[in-house]
């Protein structure tokens, strides 16, 4: 059985990674997860300078989901490259670093700094963070700016570049086409959906940031639909699918819709072993249904469905 996948130049021994921001820098989960069993580790959004993040409360639980407004708290690219990457590189697992910035130049500088750092297998460009005032989603809601960011990062690095798309747009396919046209090697989708929760007793918003990003099983059908639509329109670009994956069966929905790889996000909080359960569950499914190559499953649910 072959579970090896190639996500736009990032070679993963199985299709399972972690969703940025839900797995820290990986090391936080070492007690629970044999990190070497993962296809890749995608780490917390990294910016040029350290960021403190948003004032608390930063999360709110919602039906089968949660809102978060962390605000890209991170130690900055220098510490990630110098202190964290050496520890992660020792694991021998591809590391995907999610990068974010306030300006085009920020993205390019972070990308340049990480180019050639041992252990970094690829970059995931965050143009869809809903929780920061500048940058983030601004870059991800306009096809022109999204393609500019993609170009800036591509020209600053030799590493494979994945662009993470926001579902908070009118037409995700337009965004996907724009960033693919600008040279993205792969796409990841979806980032969180913007939401608000109100504390009825206090008569105030729950989150310090007022709005937050919705994640968890509540968004899974939206995410599967996004993967389906983009894969249908652009079958050649690899997709990293995510949104509410808790189990292998959830992950398989994404793969069958057209995702080459999948990321477990909020599921890690519920079950710290969720990533490994998904890896093992996919292997079990392949064995049970006699699939030798994981690639046979990618987009399989779309077979024989006519294009309108």
């Amino acid at each position, binding site marked *: 059985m072959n579970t090896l996948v190639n996500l736009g130049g990032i070679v993963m021994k199985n299709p399972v990674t972690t969703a940025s921001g839900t797995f*820290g820098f990986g090391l936080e989960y070492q007690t629970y997860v044999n990190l070497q069993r993962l296809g890749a580790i995608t780490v917390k959004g990294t910016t040029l300078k350290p960021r*403190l993040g948003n004032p608390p409360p*930063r*999360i709110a639980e919602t039906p089968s989901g949660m809102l978060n407004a962390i605000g890209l*708290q991170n130690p900055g690219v220098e510490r990630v490259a110098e202190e964290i990457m050496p520890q992660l590189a020792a694991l021998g697992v591809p590391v995907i670093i999610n990068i974010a910035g306030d300006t085009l130049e920020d993205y390019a500088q972070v990308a340049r700094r990480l180019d050639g750092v041992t252990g970094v297998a690829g970059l995931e460009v965050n143009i869809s963070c809903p929780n920061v005032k500048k940058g983030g989603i601004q870059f991800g809601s306009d096809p022109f700016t999204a393609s500019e960011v993609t170009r800036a990062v591509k020209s600053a690095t030799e590493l494979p570049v994945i662009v993470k798309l926001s579902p908070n747009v009118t037409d995700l396919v337009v965004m996907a086409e724009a960033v693919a046209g600008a040279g993205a090697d792969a796409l990841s989708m979806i980032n969180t959906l913007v939401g608000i929760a109100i504390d009825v007793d206090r008569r105030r918003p729950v989150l310090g940031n007022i709005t937050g990003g919705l994640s968890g099983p509540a968004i899974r059908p939206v995410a599967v639909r996004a993967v389906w639509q983009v894969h249908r329109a652009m079958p050649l670009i690899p997709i990293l699918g995510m949104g509410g994956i808790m189990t292998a069966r959830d992950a398989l929905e994404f793969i069958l819709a057209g995702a080459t790889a999948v990321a477990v996000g909020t599921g890690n909080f519920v079950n710290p072993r969720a990533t490994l359960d998904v890896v093992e569950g996919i292997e079990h499914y392949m064995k049970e249904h006699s699939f030798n190559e994981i690639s046979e499953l990618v987009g399989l649910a779309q077979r024989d469905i006519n294009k309108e």
Partner: protein
Amino acid sequence: MSQLLKAEITDCQETGPGVWVTELLAPSLAQAAVPGQFIHIRCGEDSDPLLRRPISIHAVYRRSGLVKIMFQVVGQGTTWLAGRRDGLLDVMGPLGRGFTTLTGEQTGTAAVPRLVVVGGGIGAAPLYFLLQELARAGNAQQVKVLLGARNAEHLLIHNAVKLLGFSVGVATDDGSAGYHGPVTDLLAEELQLKLDYVYACGPAPMLKTLCGMLQYAGVPGEVSVEERMACGVGACLSCVCRVKDAGGMETYRHACVDGPVFAAGEVVW
């Protein structure tokens, strides 16, 4: 070392109005836990409620491998938990940084330090485990315990603490038991005499007042805070608490790994 484990529920009882104590058979947890740490409990099998609930460890019996948690029913998760009388509980733990249990040498002043332990409302829950440890260390006669509650009915651990051999002062908001007023007034009396260390857990306004008093009196101590938490392991960065670092700069620390116990002088209220 923290673990993901299935703990057997051996008992579950309501011990106060809406306050429950669940007893778990979890020898590895009992061995590893220190006072002030918490366990992260999955409340249900499906995705609603989604997130685990962090609940502080209330009591530990190492020889029998038993661990107790005490919690107030406030929402979906705790309602579910209070309904579990047997079976297995999906638990991560022990997690977080707990209280520093001081010895005389560490304070450098008294041979046996004079300590005050202050609990407000459900905040008394983790303090019982701390007092178990202090009793084991044989410091019982130097410890004063102060407990505050809304009324007599809501007083939680005072009888159990007396059984450990500690002297207990009680304050209630309505005067139905002990001193009529905030528990911090009782602390003010204790601060008249020399104190080495104060431990506290309770509602934020109480802790804020208490930290101010300690700073004014120049007495060190530790407080256990509560924040909304998701992962419990320092990955999601949700449960931030604003603190002053060594250089006096304000920054965020995480209640799950840097806390929930922080130095009293460190927290910015």
